[in-house]
């Protein structure tokens, strides 16, 4: 039987790693869907109706899977982390309850109208529904990140004894909930979601364009995919540079507020100034190659780079090393490599954005096969970067579940047995693997089927007794 503490940690990690994919899809798609709906109800070209209908299908599947995996998360605080829930509930429960009432409700009800109600409601209410769904997804992230940012940077509380247990007592809600960490997380996360979806859209569009022009299949709606690609490139040109600029500010904030996490991100063991920014680093002993906490690093780096990043421009700045903290270090290699991979991807996305933008500007957007291959290959990398970012955030603050206050191992339900935890962990691995496979299968089917054809659209337009829109792709 697996130790209940380890099983709970693995299970929670697995739940969040799988779950985050679906909110990224829905939060990232939301602004696009609002835009498509707006153009559609304002009598724009028929391609906007196609865009709205096609991407709404993917949104709906993502939302359903997001709902069923999200409820699991909320329950796991109680089932697996009862000690944490009792300890921090006074401060932590409120944002979760508010998320349900303020955000999830808004999203889930208006999604019913948005997905099923085009023929049933007026254009105005339909557009309002798209706005409500988008607001719901983005508000959801507000409350979840308010709760999470408090765990990273606990403020506005004191520890008191209640019922023989030490618990968090909320003393200053403004300090606790208007946490400086929150804005860094929120901007970084929401921008990442839009960027990830833009990459996904670009990859899917490039696939159809490539299939049409290079492989010679006759793709029905090739204009639709060209439009999709252009919209995705615009979104990438905005979000990709912003993400890196903002990420740099966020990293400085982490250095100030969670120095142990920052040291792990840079694998700095001894406190030092003029710390290099390692591009790669390896243990010098082969025995340590699989040990994420290995120390003896052989690294290739930019002199003073890490100090420069941490301080915002001073290569001489001191970084506190992991050996100067009383608590054990997080698994450094995981944090170090995840951080590097995420940042590397961030720069790659900027390159892709400008590459696509340049080809478009030259009028060669459909001709650059290499660009299309690169976009296809990168379609899921945005989501991968989000996962890596969360690994840095969450693994980086270990051993703490509430930074400096409660250790993760001490947050696990005391009554949980190894048998129970092993049963659910095994069930989880099976269920979540099937869930992911199923989701991928369904999304792939939707993508292969493509947007609704022009015939279908015109039928709808005459039924609703509206002026006939042009054929798709007449722009």
């Amino acid at each position: 039987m697996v130790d209940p503490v380890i099983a709970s940690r693995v299970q929670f990690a697995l739940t969040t790693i799988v779950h985050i994919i679906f909110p990224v899809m829905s939060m990232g798609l939301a602004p696009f869907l609002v835009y498509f709906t707006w153009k559609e109800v304002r009598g724009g070209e028929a391609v906007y109706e196609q865009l709205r209908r096609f991407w709404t299908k993917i949104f709906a599947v993502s939302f359903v899977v997001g709902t069923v995996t999200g409820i699991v998360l909320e329950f796991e605080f109680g089932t697996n982390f009862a000690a944490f829930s009792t300890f921090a509930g006074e401060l932590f429960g409120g944002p979760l309850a508010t998320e349900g009432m303020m955000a999830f409700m808004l999203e889930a009800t208006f999604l019913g109208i948005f997905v099923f109600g085009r023929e049933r409601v007026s254009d105005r209410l339909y557009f309002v529904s798209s706005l409500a769904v988008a607001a719901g997804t983005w508000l959801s992230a507000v409350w979840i990140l308010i709760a999470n940012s408090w765990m990273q940077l606990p403020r506005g509380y004191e520890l008191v004894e209640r019922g023989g247990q030490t618990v968090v007592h909320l003393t200053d809600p403004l300090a606790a909930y208007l946490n400086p960490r929150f804005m860094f997380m929120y901007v970084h996360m929401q921008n990442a979601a839009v960027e990830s979806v833009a990459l996904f859209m670009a990859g899917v569009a490039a696939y159809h364009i490539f299939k049409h022009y290079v492989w010679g299949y006759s793709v029905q709606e090739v204009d639709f995919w060209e439009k999709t690609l252009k919209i995705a490139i615009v979104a990438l040109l905005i979000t990709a540079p912003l993400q890196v600029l903002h990420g740099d500010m966020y990293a400085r904030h982490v250095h100030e507020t969670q120095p142990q996490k920052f040291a792990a991100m840079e694998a700095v063991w001894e406190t030092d100034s003029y710390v290099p920014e390692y591009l790669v680093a390896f243990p010098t002993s082969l025995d340590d190659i699989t040990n994420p906490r290995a120390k003896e690093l052989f690294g290739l780096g930019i002199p003073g780079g890490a100090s420069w990043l941490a301080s915002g421009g001073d290569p001489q700045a001191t970084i506190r090393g992991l050996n100067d903290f009383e608590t054990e270090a997080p698994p450094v290699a995981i944090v170090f490599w995840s951080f590097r991979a995420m940042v590397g991807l961030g720069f790659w996305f900027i390159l892709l954005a400008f590459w696509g933008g340049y080809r478009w500007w030259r009028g060669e957007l459909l001709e650059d096969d290499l660009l299309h291959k690169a976009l296809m290959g990168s379609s899921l990398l945005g989501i991968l970067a989000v996962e890596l970012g969360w690994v840095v955030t969450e693994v980086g603050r270990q051993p703490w579940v509430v930074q400096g206050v409660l250790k993760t191992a001490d947050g696990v339900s005391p009554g949980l047995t190894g048998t129970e935890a092993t049963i659910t962990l095994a069930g989880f691995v099976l269920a979540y693997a099937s869930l992911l496979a199923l989701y991928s299968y369904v999304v792939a089917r939707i993508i292969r089927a493509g947007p609704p054809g022009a015939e279908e659209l015109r039928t709808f337009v005459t039924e609703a007794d509206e002026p006939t829109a042009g054929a798709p792709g007449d722009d």
Partner: protein
Amino acid sequence: MTDYGSLATEPLFGLPLPTLWFALVFAILGTFLFLDGFDFGAGALFATREDESERETILAAIGPFWDGNEVWLVVFGGALFAAFPAAYANLFSRNYLLLFGVLAALILRGLAPEMYEQRHDAAWQRWWGRSFVAGSVLAPFLLGVFTANWLTGSDALLSPVGVAVGLALVALTVVSGAAFLRLKVSGPLRAAVRRPGERAVVAYLVLVVLSLGLLSLSTPRLAATVVTPPVLALVAVSVGLGVGYVAALRTGRDLLALVASGLLTYGLVAVVALLLFPLIDPGADLSVAEAIVAPLALNIMSVASALLLPLVVTYFVVLYSAFGGPVQPTESY
């Protein structure tokens, strides 16, 4: 640091907030059991229909609603966590496997309609049809077992009283599911769901009485609280509602029947709340007064809920009026 004055020390306006939150948590649970209950019931009734177009109609009937309805469960968990963190932690960790069973059932039920419509070959639809039925029946059943455990303080996976409450809850979802479907469909399907609805309401009433009997045998505390006037009055009212439900179905007043099934659901939840109070978790010997969060957090949550819950009700009114009346022939999931 901001000084929050009396906000940090006393309940807002001197209101009996702990008791109000206890009631609110159960009102939210009742709303979930009623709203998602008719989705579950529709799922159980799905099993009784062979015809492909009828099955599609059942899925189309719950399509726009079930996700919003299920969010009431999320809000229930959130409200319990926010107002009674210790009770939430104790209850949920004690009923560990049971709650993961509920989650698995909800996953099956939630995915099934979405998947069912993805492909139109027989094997695929048979599998997802089964998944839909299994999820729709297991979710209320296991929630019933959880409710029985909540009342008795036990952590058994299965017990006679757990099975009785579980089956009662399944029957209740069929009662509301039948009334809901009669409002949303027409023709032979509408006629066909009347009889299962009537049988379910009889089964429900029998199972409730049986459950109360078994509960009173389980612990001395429950033996004393089951035979009290409010509980017995609610049981009597439930019998009356059951008769009214059958009469409404037979005279074609389906909305009235749905209202009766809703009142039955809230009545059941009220019985559960009465059997618990003044405790909130007998298993950990926690009372409402002990488990409630400190005044400042409670006051903030009270203000937030007072502002947000009326909005939530508005969303549901908009949703249900947009999809009022029967499912149109062109509509599908």
